[in-house]
C-alpha cells in the first residue's frame, strides 16, 4: 500500500481537483481529505456518511464569573492577549478565539476561578464514495490546526486501507508549509506538488520542496495552467529537477476544470478535454514512480 499526498505550497493551484481525478483513475484506493481547515474534496466525491466522531484537542480556559475576584492576575500572565476586563461586571473574561490552551491562568488564579475543559475542535467522518472509502473532517471555526486532526484523518484512512488491502492511499493535502502540511506528509511514500507558472507559485514551490527534502520524502511536480506562462513553466520544471523532484507533466488551462467542479465530477469523468488527457498521462507517470 502506497501513500501519496497531494500538496501545493501556494493555495488554489488545483490540488483538490487533481486528487479527485486520481481517485477516479485509481482502481483500489482509499481517500483522505487532510485539508481540514477548508475541505473541498467532498464537493466532488459526494460522500455518503457512515460515521461521525467528535474531535477534541487541547483545552480552553473559561473564567467562572461569579468566582472571579477581579484581581487581573490572569490578564497579567496571559501571553496571547486572550484575557480582557468586562468593566461593567468588574470580572475578567477569556476570548476563546485567542486562548492558546496553555493553562497558565488556570494554574495561577488565586481564586481558583478558571475552568479548563477539553476543547471541541471539530469532527471527523468516515464515508463511502464512488471511488472508495473516504476519511475527512471539518475543523471548527477558530480552532487550532496543530495537525492533530490531520494526523487522525491519515491514521484512520491508513487503517481502512490496510483492512481492505487497498493499493493506494490518496491524500488531499493543505496549502502552506506549517503544522497541518507537516502532519500530512511525514512518513508518506511520495508527495505530488501541484503548482502554477507564476512567480508566486514558483516561490512557494521552492519552500514546499525544501520541506519535503527536510522530511526526506520523494517529490513529484506538475504545473497547472502551464500555458499562462510557458517560460516560467520551463524554469519551474528545471528547478524541480535540480532539487531532485520528478516532473510529471503540465496541465493546460481548461475551462472544463471549473465545469467539472460545478457538475460535481472529477475532470477525467467529465470528458476528454486537454486537461483530462494530460491528467491521465500524469497519472500513468506517477504510477511508474511508485
Amino acid at each position, binding site marked *: 500500500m502506497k501513500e501519496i499526498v497531494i500538496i501545493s505550497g501556494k493555495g488554489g493551484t488545483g490540488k483538490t481537483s487533481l486528487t479527485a481525478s486520481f481517485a477516479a483513475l485509481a482502481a483500489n484506493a482509499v481517500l483522505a481529505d487532510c485539508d481540514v481547515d477548508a475541505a473541498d474534496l467532498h464537493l466532488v466525491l459526494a460522500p455518503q456518511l457512515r460515521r461521525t466522531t467528535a474531535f477534541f484537542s487541547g483545552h480552553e480556559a473559561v473564567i467562572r464569573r461569579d468566582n472571579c475576584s477581579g484581581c487581573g492576575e490572569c490578564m497579567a500572565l496571559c501571553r*496571547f492577549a486572550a484575557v480582557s476586563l468586562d468593566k461593567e461586571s468588574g470580572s475578567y473574561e477569556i476570548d476563546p478565539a485567542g486562548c492558546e490552551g496553555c493553562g*497558565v491562568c488556570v494554574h495561577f488564579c488565586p481564586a481558583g476561578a478558571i475552568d479548563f475543559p477539553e476543547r471541541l475542535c471539530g469532527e471527523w467522518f468516515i464515508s463511502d464514495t464512488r471511488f472508495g472509502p473516504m476519511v475527512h473532517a471539518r475543523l471548527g471555526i477558530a480552532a487550532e490546526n496543530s495537525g492533530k486532526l490531520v494526523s487522525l484523518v491519515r491514521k484512520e484512512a491508513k487503517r481502512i486501507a490496510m483492512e481492505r488491502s487497498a493499493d493506494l492511499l490518496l491524500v488531499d493535502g493543505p496549502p502552506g508549509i506549517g503544522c497541518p502540511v507537516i502532519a500530512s506528509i511525514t512518513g508518506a511514500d511520495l508527495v505530488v506538488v501541484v503548482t502554477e507558472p507564476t512567480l508566486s507559485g514558483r516561490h512557494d514551490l521552492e519552500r514546499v520542496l525544501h520541506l519535503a527534502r527536510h522530511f526526506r520524502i520523494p517529490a513529484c511536480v506538475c504545473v497547472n495552467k502551464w500555458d499562462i506562462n510557458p517560460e516560467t513553466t520551463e524554469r519551474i520544471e528545471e528547478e524541480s529537477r535540480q532539487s531532485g523532484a520528478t516532473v510529471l507533466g503540465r496541465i493546460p488551462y481548461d475551462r472544463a476544470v471549473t465545469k467539472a467542479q460545478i457538475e460535481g465530477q472529477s475532470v477525467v469523468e467529465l470528458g476528454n478535454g486537454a486537461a483530462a488527457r494530460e491528467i491521465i498521462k500524469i497519472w500513468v507517470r506517477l504510477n511508474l514512480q511508485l
Partner: protein
Amino acid sequence: MKVAVASGKGGTGKTTLSVALALVAPQPVMLLDCDVEEPNGHIFLTLEAMETETVTVAVPEIDAATCRACGECMRICRFNAIISLGAKALVFPELCHSCGGCARVCPSGAISEIPRRIGTIDSGIAGHVTLVQGRLDVGNAMATPLIRAVKRHADRGVATIIDCPPGTSCPMIAAVRGADFVILVTEPTPFGLHDLTLAVETVRTLAIPFGVIVNRADTGDSRVADYCSHEEIPILLNIPENRRAAEAYSRGESILSAMPDLTAALRDIWRRIGGGEA
C-alpha cells in the same frame, strides 16, 4: 484603519488585491503580509530600503545545577515540550508555545527563557507603500507567533492592509483579529462558495464588518452571488476573468497594469470602507 484581506480558499486573489489596494491607496499605507508560510507580496512591489529582522519566541532553558527534578514544569506544560526524567530535565523547543508557565512555576528558579528563532520579518518601501512581510523558517511548524510579530509592526496612524493566510484556523484568526474591516475574496465555484461560508462564519464570530470581492466573476455560476444576496453580504466588486491579468500576475506584475479600470473601482472601495460603510 486596518483592512484585512482574507478568504477561506487559497488562490482566490488575496495577495493580488492586497497589493492593488495598497498601490491605489490615497495616502501612505502599510501592507502587512501575514501569509508567513508562503509570503508573496514582495514579488509585486519594487522595494527599497530593505531591512530584515530575525524573529524569535521564548523557550525554556534549564539550569541543571539548580534543577531539583521536582517535575512541576512537566506538569504545567500542556504541550509535552518539557520533560523531567529523574535527575535531568529535557526541553523540546519546537513544541513549546512560549506560555511562560514552566519558568513561572519552577520552585527552584532553575528555568530561564531564551530566544529561539522562528523566522524573519522583512520590510521595504515602494513609493507610498511600506511592506512588512513575515517569512516562517521552513520546517518550523507554528505560523501564529510570527503572524503576531508582524502585526505588532502596525503603525496606529497609518492605513494598514493585512494580507491574510488562507483558511479559517488559528493563523487566519491571528491575522484578522483587530482589523476594522475584512474583505473576503472568493471565486464563483463550488469550492469558492464552500470555503467562503466558512470564512464568513469566522469573521462573524470575530464580529468584524466585512464585504466580498468576487474574482474571476464570469467563470463558474451564480451560487456565490445568490449566497451573498441571501445573507445580505455586500459584494464590493466583481472582477471578470482576464487572461492578460493572469499572465501579468504570473510575471509578478500588478493586476492594475492589465486591468487599469480596476484602479477607480478599488479607490471606491477605500472610500466606502473608510467612510464606515460595511
